[in-house]
């Protein structure tokens, strides 16, 4: 793993989506899961039934969702999954007065449960989720909410440190052991409710290795069979040693969120100029081919990509737009990080963006800071950070809300939400309200497509790249199919002895 440490095991993990990929979705399940099967390799992943076998919105109340739980699911500790467990988990993640409340889980899960007003039991295997607003996207939001065993939590008397050492979920792997900061070992859950996903390995050993060269050396020396995110300049060496390099498009967006409240990017022509200024082919070459050229918030395989306006490299047009906007040279300041989750090769990529934008009439000032500091700038929003015209924070685009809505919706203005630069457009807000109110998936798809196309037309972001999620593995590894997702199914993977 690229993570600096082992992800926490008390439910929703830390360490970004890598924590979900290797620990979260292996130990635990959510009511709604992501389809990571072979069929998901050629298209963007979508949700599928998880611990809930089916769900629907209440016919008489569009702020109430009904989830039917799967029968005969057992926690790793042997207890049965019931509707009470779901209600308890909500309290565990959201009710700071409840004895089972865990602030760390609240922090991780609240973002996904923000629209939930309460959860109640209908019968032993049915629960109702009441929402504060009409929310047709709730199943997507619940796909990130991992359920833990109340039995085990009560057994350890809500001591979360102890629970972390004896976690109990319903996932395809069960916890075996962990040496702090060194490795975590998981064993197959032979009784997993989805028989097709019982792991084919004897043991899954997870080792945090934040340093890319260390990961490469560990794979080449045979110490590990699989590494995440080899650096682009190590690919040829790995291939020469017979290693498999696996890549696929996935919902990732290496981008700049823009300051709409003040400064140069408040003018649409300047935003469009910045997009025309970028030669993404050069960027791809610099990264040894390990990226998709980014011309939209979404990778083209996303079902609601549509036919957005494409800003092909055209520095002359960029300069002309800057002239029209009377911003030449156009001074902009970009807050960037030296590294960070999903930031790819942050410094060289930002340097290249700067040189290309400068060549087209901008005068770019890069403001590097560490990842933590950039996250603070991101959360606090543009009101507190007027000095920046844009921030370079990579985003996941796996579900409609995270992909599109949060960037442009007025109620999401930071620090309340993730609309850092306070973008606001009444037409878009109306469209977003319609999306939340549309429960027909096909009709909603059309609205989402319209939103993506509008965001491109407005040049709501500077589009640069989509990562290809490279990973390298020994020739002994078989059976892995890389889904177009941040999450991956490790259960079909087997290893030659």
């Amino acid at each position, binding site marked *: 793993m690229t993570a600096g440490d082992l992800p926490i095991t008390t439910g929703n993990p830390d360490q970004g989506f890598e924590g979900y990929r290797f620990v979260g979705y292996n130990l635990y399940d959510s009511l709604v899961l992501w389809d990571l099967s072979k069929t998901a390799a050629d298209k963007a992943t979508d949700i599928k039934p998880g611990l809930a076998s089916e769900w629907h919105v209440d016919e008489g109340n569009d702020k109430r969702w009904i989830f039917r739980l799967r029968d005969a699911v057992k926690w790793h500790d042997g207890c049965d999954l019931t509707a009470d467990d779901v209600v308890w988990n909500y309290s565990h993640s959201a009710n700071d007065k409840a004895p089972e409340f865990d602030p760390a889980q609240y*922090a991780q899960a*609240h*973002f996904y449960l923000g629209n939930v007003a309460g959860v109640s039991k209908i019968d032993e295997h049915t629960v109702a989720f009441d929402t504060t607003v009409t929310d047709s996207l709730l199943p997507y939001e619940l796909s990130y909410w991992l359920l833990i065993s109340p039995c085990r939590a009560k057994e350890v008397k809500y001591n979360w440190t102890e629970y*972390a050492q004896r976690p109990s979920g319903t996932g395809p792997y069960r916890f075996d052991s962990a040496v702090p900061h060194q*490795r975590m070992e998981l064993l197959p859950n032979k009784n997993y409710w989805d028989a097709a996903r019982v792991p084919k390995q004897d043991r899954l050993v997870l080792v945090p290795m934040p340093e890319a060269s*260390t990961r490469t*050396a560990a794979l080449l020396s045979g110490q590990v069979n699989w590494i995440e995110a080899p650096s682009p300049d190590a690919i040829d060496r790995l291939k020469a040693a017979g290693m498999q390099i696996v890549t696929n498009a996935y919902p990732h967006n290496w981008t700049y969120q823009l300051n709409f409240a003040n400064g140069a990017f408040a003018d649409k022509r300047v935003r469009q100029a910045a997009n025309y200024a970028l030669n993404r082919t050069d960027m791809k070459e610099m990264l040894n081919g390990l990226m998709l050229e980014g011309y939209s918030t979404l990778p083209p395989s996303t079902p609601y990509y549509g036919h957005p306006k494409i800003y092909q490299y055209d520095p002359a047009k960029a300069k002309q737009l800057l002239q029209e906007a009377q911003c030449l040279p156009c001074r902009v300041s970009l807050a960037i990080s030296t590294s960070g*989750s999903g930031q790819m090769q942050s410094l060289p990529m930002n340097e290249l963006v700067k040189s290309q934008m400068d060549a087209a009439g901008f005068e770019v000032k890069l403001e590097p800071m560490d*990842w933590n500091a950039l996250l*603070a700038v991101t959360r606090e929003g543009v009101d507190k950070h007027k000095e920046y015209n844009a921030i370079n924070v990579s985003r996941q685009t796996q579900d409609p809300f995270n992909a599109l809505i949060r960037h442009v919706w007025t109620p999401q203005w930071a620090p309340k939400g993730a609309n850092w630069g306070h973008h606001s457009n009444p037409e878009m807000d109306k469209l977003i309200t319609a999306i939340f109110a549309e429960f027909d998936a096909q009709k909603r798809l059309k609205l989402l497509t319209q939103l993506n196309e509008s965001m491109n037309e407005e040049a709501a972001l500077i589009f640069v790249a989509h990562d290809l999620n490279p990973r390298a593995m020994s020739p002994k590894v078989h059976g892995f199919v890389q889904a177009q997702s941040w999450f991956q199914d490790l259960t079909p993977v087997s290893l030659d002895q």
Partner: protein
Amino acid sequence: MIRYILRRILYAIPIAFGVSVVCFSLVYIAPGDPLQTVMPPDATAETIAIVKHAYGFDKPLPIQFLIWLGRVVTGDFGVSIATRRPVFLEVSEALANTALLAMFAVPLAFFTGYVMGAVAGSFAGRWVDRVVTGAAVVGVSLPNYWLGIVLVIVFAVEYMLLPATGMGPNGSTGFSLLQWSNVQFLVLPVITLAMIPIGILARTTRAAVAEVRNQDFVQTLRAKGLSEWAVTRHVLKNAMPQVMAVMGLQFGYLLGGSILVETVFTWPGSGFLLSKAIINRDVPVLQGTILVLSLVFVATNLVVDLLQSLIDPRIRRA
């Protein structure tokens, strides 16, 4: 002597207090959020406020400091925000892992550096001196993370003689010095860690020995007919206090753990712990580690001072 030791121990208290105030302040001056590790990037202001309250980070800084200090005095260093493990456990385990590296790196560095420096100083200006001094300069100048990566490429990747990273094979639960399957993980980080202290000690010892050899008493010893070996013994003994001061500093450096070396080898020592705590803004771990490491430095300096005064009574304090 006992009064001197007691006095030095008493001096350590304000030093530790000063260090804790400075490290507490620095952690908060740095931009970023101490709860970053438990919050997703898109945490809202409301989420942050509730979590800050739950962790006690909503209180004024002086109050937070006093609460922390009150707990530390009773031996409670708090709980890591990132791992939820007691900080004392985190720091003590990391220190033990670093001490394991130091246990081998210290004798390797001190013996090699001292011998190289003594030989060079004894033959100052001659070809042996030039070769040894050149080697010492290389040792000091090589970035240790670079050296670590090169050693990994040669010994782990190309020849597959040693493991590239980690601290023990899969399935092992503890580190045994009696098993090669464990000990082999020590070899590359120990060599990498020892390289800079070897260079520094070789240069220091060389300078000290060369300086002492030019002093009048050495001439007197020779005039009295002592053998060259006996003269050398006197020279080495007289050069020792100066060398020991540097050894003390290097011992502290080795025991403090090297962030770069431990990161390259994913060695779960105090340097690695510190770097993760800095990146995650894991304030309790950061404060606990810095405090303990500063106390280690204070204790090391005390021991070095005592050893110096034992070797050279002229510098014994009252």
